[in-house]
Structure formats: structure tokens, C-alpha cells
């Protein structure tokens, strides 16, 4: 377990699933924050009451609510939100929200000189500062904040480790500057800029960034006996105990009608993306980029629009898998299951996908339902996807699959692959250089998460 926030989030999900299965969720949901943080229990924020307040918002987000809007009405009980979610299951249009009660309003990031400073004779901080922002007063270094650009060079050279940089984890993690404090000093997301990469969600130590989940919609559909098909992303193979054969049986055990590997969709993406690459190169284009990572595509749409024509038009593995499911079970509800927040957005925009959930939610669903994965039989996978398609989940996996597909068929066109293994604040600038044709390579693979989808924000095991 990597941290307490993760643990609490998962425990809460499991509890909700258990209560739902028992049919007691509506009756008990209002008491849940109190049950988890009774009067004399340990607390993680300032007191049990603060913990309970945030738990309430967490439950709201689990029902798909936008906490930013709903926090105007503190008196509305959870069972009313539940009733609304169940009677009018509208898909959340934006998969992320900020819980104002949870946000600590971390102080602005800046360079601080601590009392470790000895006002030394050499003063490397003064000499290393590119902006002349440091001087020494009364044997102590002082920062002129009107000049400081927070580059951190002084941190590296101080022989006493006397200089630190305070951080705002969500802002530091956001690759596109989409999260900033609002006039009340709490984090707020600018959804015109947000690419749903989930980095703020993973990095906030107060766990104030929340996903707007569809878990209850999935539960309701299962309970009402609807025909649900699970489309499981390739990264599942590294996430659950016992391998995907047992995992698929476990998914069927909670009531899914069929389980399909999204890697089968990845096979089609590979095939068509390889064809598309050859066509584009024959037309004289200089570069094509992948399109399977939703956060990357959003990054291009919102921040590097000049690159949009270079992004492959081939649908993602999720969408192809959705089509396969529609052919096989035209009357079923397709539920995508992956490690990703951005895929929720793509799922909402895709005709082939009806609901999306995460590995974390799947784990909670199985745990809350009392399904033990390890003791399941092997699911008879009719045709296992090929290895290169399953490896889409790893950085460079897409490139490898396309290269493999092109073997012997590309004629004199040579694929020169480049890749982004995770995006950060510099990525948009680099991508603009690719768009301008200033960088080498004719095939660019971009994965928002380090390591590829296996490093996704909603994966169970973080490597």
C-alpha cells in the first residue's frame, strides 16, 4: 500500500459495494462517514469531523457528483444524492472534481532559506543564481522574490542543504497548468486546459482531487439483471493476482455476461495504424503520432493544435474492442475497465462504450462482492490476443506492435520511431517542435503515464 489516501479510498469503495449488495446502501450511506470515523477514533485531518466531511464528498464523487458544484448545499443528505444517481443515471461529463473541504490550499511554491544557512564565505547560492535574486544580510542568505524564478539552482549548490523549495503537488504534477488555486485559496481545475491525465489525482497528498465514478451505475445495471460486457484493458495482466484467466472468471462471477480482452482491439489498432502510417508516408507526410492514449490526444487538441493533423485517425483499442463486443452482443452494455481517468472521457464520447470503470473500482467490486480471484477457475478465452497487442500497455509497446506489423510490407518506407514515456510540463513545447518538423523521427508514440498504461493513475500496483 503506497499511502493512506489510497487505502481509505479503496476501503470506502469496498464498503459501498458491500452495502449495495446487501441492499442496505440507501439506508446506511448517511451514517457511513460516522461509521468510518467514530467519535473517538484516530483521524487523519484536524479532527474526526473534518474527516467525515471529506468522506461525504468522497461518497458523492463515487456517485458521480461534481463536488465543486454540490458543496454549495452541505445539508443535502447522501441518500438523496444516491436517489438522484439511481433514478437519473447521467454520465458525468468531466471525470475529475476537486473537493474544496479536502484541499489544504498548500502555500505557493517558492524558494525558502532555512535556518541551516550559515552565511558562508563562498556563497555558492549567490553565484549560481541566474537572476541575481540572492544576497546575504546579517550572515544569512535572503531571496528577492521579485527576481526569483524558482529554478532551484541554489538548492543544488548549498553545502548545508539550507535551501528548500516548497511545493504545491497538484500544480507541480500538472503538465498543462490546468490546476490553480481559486479566489478562496483552494485548488480548482480549468477544464478548458485539463487533459485528464490524472497526475494531480495521484499526487495530491490530501487526496482532494477525486474521480467522478460510474461505479454505482455499473452496480445498478448488474443488479437489475442487464446484460453487461466487460472490456478489460491489457494492463490488467500485471495488476491482479493469478493472471487474466482467473480475473475474467471473477468478473463473470459478479454478473458480467461476457468478458473481452481490449488487446483484441489493440490488434485491430495495430493493423490499421500500420496501414495508415504507410499511406501517410506515401503521401509525403513526415510524421505520424499514435492516438491510443486519450490524455495525449487531449494534450494535442488543447495545447498543440498544430500537431492534430499528424495524430493517427485510427480508433483506440478500447473503441475497436467495443465494436467487437457490439458485433458479438448487440444488445449488451459495454463496460470498459482500465487504469485510466482520461479513458472515462473518451468512453463518454464513444458510441461503442457505455460505461467506464477503473482497476481500483473493479478490485473493490470483486472484494465487496466477496469474489476471491485466486480461487476462480481459468476463464476459457476463445482466442487469446497476440503478445504484441497485450504489450500495448507498456511504453514502446505500440511502436513495437506497428513495427512487427510492418515487417516485410513497408517496402522502402522505414519506420523511425521516437517516444515519450510519460508527459510533463515540457512535453507541449517538445511536441510543438515535432509539429514544426524540427525533430527527427517519422513515428511518434506518446504515453501520458510513465511506463505506459501500466503506470496509470488508477492502477492497483504502482511500480
Amino acid at each position, binding site marked *: 500500500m503506497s499511502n493512506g489516501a489510497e487505502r481509505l479510498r479503496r476501503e470506502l469503495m469496498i464498503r459501498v459495494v458491500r452495502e449495495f449488495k446487501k441492499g442496505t446502501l440507501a439506508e446506511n450511506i448517511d451514517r457511513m462517514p460516522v461509521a468510518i470515523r467514530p467519535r473517538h477514533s484516530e483521524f487523519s485531518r484536524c479532527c474526526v469531523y473534518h474527516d467525515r466531511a471529506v468522506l461525504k464528498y468522497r461518497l458523492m464523487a463515487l456517485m458521480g457528483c461534481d463536488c465543486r458544484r454540490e458543496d454549495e448545499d452541505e445539508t443535502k443528505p447522501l441518500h438523496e444524492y444516491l436517489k438522484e444517481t439511481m433514478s437519473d443515471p447521467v454520465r458525468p461529463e468531466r471525470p475529475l472534481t476537486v473537493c474544496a473541504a479536502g484541499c489544504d490550499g498548500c502555500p505557493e511554491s517558492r524558494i525558502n532559506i532555512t535556518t541551516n544557512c550559515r552565511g558562508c564565505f563562498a556563497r555558492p547560492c549567490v553565484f549560481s543564481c541566474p537572476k541575481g535574486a540572492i544576497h546575504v544580510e546579517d550572515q544569512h542568505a535572503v531571496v528577492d522574490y521579485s527576481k526569483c524564478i524558482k529554478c532551484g539552482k541554489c538548492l543544488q549548490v548549498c553545502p548545508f542543504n539550507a535551501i528548500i523549495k516548497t511545493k504545491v503537488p497538484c500544480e507541480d504534477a500538472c503538465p498543462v497548468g490546468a490546476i490553480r488555486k481559486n479566489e478562496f485559496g483552494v485548488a480548482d481545475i480549468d477544464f478548458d486546459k485539463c487533459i485528464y491525465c490524472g497526475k494531480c489525482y495521484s499526487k495530491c497528498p490530501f487526496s482532494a482531487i477525486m474521480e467522478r465514478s460510474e461505479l454505482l451505475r455499473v452496480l445498478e445495471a448488474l443488479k437489475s439483471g442487464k446484460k453487461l460486457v466487460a472490456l478489460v484493458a491489457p494492463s490488467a495482466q500485471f495488476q491482479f493476482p*493469478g493472471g487474466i484467466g482467473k480475473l475474467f472468471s471473477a468478473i463473470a462471477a459478479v454478473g458480467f455476461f461476457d468478458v473481452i480482452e481490449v488487446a483484441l482491439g489493440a490488434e485491430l489498432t495495430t493493423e490499421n495504424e500500420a496501414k495508415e502510417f504507410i499511406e501517410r508516408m506515401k503521401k509525403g507526410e513526415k510524421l505520424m503520432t499514435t492516438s491510443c492514449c486519450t490524455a495525449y490526444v487531449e494534450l494535442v487538441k488543447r495545447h498543440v493544435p498544430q500537431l492534430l493533423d499528424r495524430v493517427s485517425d485510427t480508433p483506440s483499442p478500447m473503441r475497436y474492442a467495443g465494436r467487437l463486443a457490439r458485433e458479438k452482443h448487440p444488445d449488451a452494455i459495454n463496460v470498459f475497465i482500465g487504469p485510466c481517468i482520461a479513458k472515462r472521457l473518451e468512453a463518454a464520447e464513444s458510441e461503442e462504450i457505455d460505461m467506464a470503470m477503473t482497476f481500483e473500482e473493479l478490485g473493490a467490486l470483486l472484494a465487496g462482492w466477496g469474489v476471491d*480471484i485466486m480461487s476462480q477457475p481459468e476463464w476459457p478465452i476463445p482466442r487469446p490476443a497476440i503478445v504484441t497487442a497485450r504489450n500495448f500497455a507498456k511504453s514502446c509497446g505500440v511502436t513495437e506492435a506497428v513495427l512487427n506489423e510492418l515487417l516485410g510490407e513497408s517496402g522502402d518506407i522505414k519506420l523511425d520511431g521516437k517516444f515519450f514515456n510519460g508527459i510533463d510540463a515540457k512535453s507541449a513545447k517538445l511536441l510543438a517542435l515535432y509539429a514544426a518538423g524540427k525533430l527527427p523521427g517519422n513515428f511518434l508514440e506518446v504515453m501520458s503515464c510513465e511506463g505506459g498504461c501500466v503506470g496509470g493513475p488508477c492502477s492497483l500496483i504502482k511500480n
Partner: protein
Amino acid sequence: MIDLEICCGTTCYMLGGAALLELEKALPEEWRQLVDVRAVPCTDACAREDLGRAPFVRLNGELIANATREKIYLRLSELVAAAGGEK
């Protein structure tokens, strides 16, 4: 041989068991021959509220709730010392 069973029932796995599985590789060299680490299916301990919270492990049959690497190491070192004393 000391028997270390790490519960990989879904609840334990979700709440920390997955990370405990890494423990086998991280064991000190001198313990490795003495400890048999196994991933086991759900022990049903999570369904009972009186036994504590997941994740659960069993060390020579003794149930440890809310298991962490530190807790396991502590108990293991006692067991290793006891086993050494018998020899």
C-alpha cells in the same frame, strides 16, 4: 521452515497484500532459506470484524492483521531467533 502465507484474497490484495508479495524478494539473505513465502487464496479473515483489518498474513499459522512489512519482519526475527535457539 517458517511458513509465511500472504493472503491474496481480493480485499487483502487491494489493501496492501499486493505490496507484501514483494517481500519474498526483499528478505535478508540469511532468512531466505528459513522462510517459505506463499501467496494463498482468501482466508475469510476479512469477513470477520473481530480479527482486525486487511491485509492479513499467517506466520506459522498465527494470524497477523493489518500486516505491514515491519510487523512481519518483527515477528519473523523472533521466530528465526527461536528456531536458531533450538538447533
